[in-house]
């Protein structure tokens, strides 16, 4: 087999086997609580991949990914609520009774169908992202104006969802952990295990998908837009179309991520659309390394894991650490950790602390312990 003939392919294969083994074994290695957290963070990695696509590759800093994240979550939660609403009066979810609503609002109807839900989880956020993006990009609004507008859009959605008790239970959000799916409680251990596996698989699929997007000409145009949009336009491409497509893809990824996060955290609420959460998504990518897809995944999982560990030990200090991370990554590590490593940062660090000696030559040569030049 030719693809396994080189050393690199063997390393790759080993890594993949390890990853898959770890995913399969994780439920028996980790306590239920930690497994649930890991599953949540893996689902957050999917939204981080979307942020990386639009920010790391296309240069558009969206502070409104929370919209699409929450929309995906609401789609999933609405289906689950309807799925187990049979026992309640009028056959509609319980919370409607609190506000005296007797008839299901019209937009809930299609969510009775599981197929519609599975499609709408990614399609609905993607369509809304595409529409919003098209309106903004058409007017050549970009850079910080784009960021501010996405933030404003986030607030619009937040206030809307927060204020509509009679339609979607307003600020209380929709609970999913006590709903039924396939005759099982969604919050039960066995369901959570399956959701963990689904999240892990979807992260890998999303990674392949994102890699496929940025690898070819399409990805080159995205990078071109990031580096010099005017030049891309003068070369005959229409940046509006490319930006709209990639923004809508990122929205779809955010929707999937939000749905997975919702079923694992047990609730979707307007809190998913607060300003800090959407900016946090950016910092995962920034720390991991923008423009490196793996960095986005690692950043999302590791920072969130660190967050939960630090918050358990010293609740007050996480804000300081997070704030410091923002400043540090922007001023000292603009490429993120992975980008820094890929640019030879580790070698430089070793050189700085004197472990790895280097001769001042061009091209640079390394020396061994006896001070001889390595061949």
């Amino acid at each position, binding site marked *: 087999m030719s693809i396994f003939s080189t050393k690199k392919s063997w390393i790759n294969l080993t890594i993949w086997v390890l990853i898959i083994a770890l995913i399969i074994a994780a439920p028996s290695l980790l306590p239920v609580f930690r497994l649930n957290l890991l599953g949540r963070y893996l689902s957050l990695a999917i939204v981080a991949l979307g942020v990386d696509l639009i920010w790391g590759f296309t240069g558009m800093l969206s502070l409104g990914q929370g919209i699409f994240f929450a929309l995906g979550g609401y789609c999933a939660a609405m289906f689950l609520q309807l799925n187990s609403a049979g026992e309640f009066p009028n056959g509609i979810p319980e919370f409607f009774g609190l506000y005296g609503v007797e008839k299901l609002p019209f937009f809930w109807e299609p969510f009775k169908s599981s197929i519609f839900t599975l499609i709408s989880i990614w399609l609905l956020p993607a369509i809304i992202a595409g529409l919003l993006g098209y309106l903004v990009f058409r007017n*050549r609004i970009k850079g910080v104006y784009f960021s501010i507008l996405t933030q404003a859009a986030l607030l619009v959605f937040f*206030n809307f969802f927060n*204020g509509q008790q009679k339609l979607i239970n307003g600020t209380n959000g929709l609970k999913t952990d006590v709903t039924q799916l396939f005759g099982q409680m969604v919050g039960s251990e066995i369901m959570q295990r399956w959701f963990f596996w689904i999240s892990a698989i979807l992260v890998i699929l999303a990674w392949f998908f994102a890699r496929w997007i940025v690898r070819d000409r399409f990805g080159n145009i995205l990078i071109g837009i990031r580096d010099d949009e005017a030049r891309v336009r003068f070369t005959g491409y229409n940046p509006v179309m490319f930006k709209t497509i990639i923004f809508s893809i990122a929205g779809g990824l955010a929707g999937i991520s939000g749905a997975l996060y919702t079923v694992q955290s047990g609730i979707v609420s307007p809190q998913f659309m607060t*300003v800090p959460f959407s900016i946090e998504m950016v910092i995962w990518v920034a720390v991991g390394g923008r423009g490196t897809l793996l960095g986005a995944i690692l950043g999302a999982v590791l920072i969130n894991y660190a967050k939960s560990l630090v918050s358990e030990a010293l609740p007050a200090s996480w804000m300081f650490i*997070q704030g410091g991370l923002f400043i540090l990554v922007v001023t000292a590590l603009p490429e993120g950790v992975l980008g820094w490593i890929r640019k030879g940062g580790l070698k430089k660090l070793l050189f700085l602390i004197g472990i790895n000696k280097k001769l001042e030559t061009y091209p640079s040569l390394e020396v061994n312990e006896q001070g001889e030049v390595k061949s």
Partner: protein
Amino acid sequence: MQLLLESLFNGVAIGSVLLVAALGLAIVFGLMGVINLAHGELMMLGAYSTYITQLIFKQVSFLKPFYDSYVIVAIGIAFLVSGTVGILLERTVIRRLYGSPLETLLATWGVSLILQQFVRSVPLAYASGLVIALFFGLFSPLFISDDLLSGAKGKLIRASIWGFSALLGVATGGILSSLVSKLSRASARNVDVTAPSWMRGGIDFVGITFPKTRLLIILITLISVLVVIFFLDKTAWGIRIRAVTQNRPMSDCLGISTETVDIITFGIGSGLAGVAGVAVSLLGSVGPNVGGNYIVGCFMVVVLGGVGNLLGTILASFSIGIMTDLIGAGRLLTIWPDMPSPIYSTIDFFATTSMARVMIFALIVIFLQFRPTGMFPQKGRMVES
């Protein structure tokens, strides 16, 4: 007619809070191209300064007779506190990031997180001590001649200035925490600023009551705007600031110290955030998150008005204020009760404060479809603009 006047007054009152908050942002964003997401937290520092000033006036015996005028003193103190923190921010972080606004956005968000947690977990007495230490450490070298500050001796002098400032800060912290017990413990709870007696109640005019706090806020805004316009138009440093805004390398060549200009611009912008904080503290309780409620609205004002244009900022904040009152308080429905029913039910749907926000932001986004660069766009011949 009366109703219209009342609505107009309320709108202007809401708008003037927005304006005084957005003024500093407009300067920093418009003149320096820096997105300062910590602006809300600088406002929060201003609001806390008001609270601390009020407590000091209440507790210290020789200041007690002047309690009624603490608000006016607080405006000055808030300006200095926020300005000092802003200059520190500029010197340490933002200076490295000029020319890349998205990076400043992320870095200042980090700063805002740190400031929020700082007021939660540090006792306010020692926090004020720290600000005083920073103030003297940053500004006292300005009053010492350059000869003394150069060379090895200069380093010693600088170090001793910082040492002295640190001592002063610790002393202030200690004195404050022993004088005012409320300031000696860290607390995440919201605090309330009580208005002095002359600010309570309202003034009756043609059958409408105008609350005095609102009138004072309008006055503060008016004075701030006039001072800023005067400073930018008439003073030497104001003209230098505008020159740097128009063409940085050329101003540098002509001998303007762009670094000093940056410090002054950012300091004034941050100081104005502090003044806005005083206004905000008069309206409701003060907490670590108080700034977050205003920051997005401020940015909308700046974008809607057109970046780098004070007139646009003023018009935008008043139109947003009046719209908020007309829609949010349901006043449009009272003024015009027999409007067509589909419009009536739509506006009725949006007639709460948060839903009014939804509608106004949506309207702004629609407006930007037609005028992408705001009401008064900057003119230029760049490809990008």
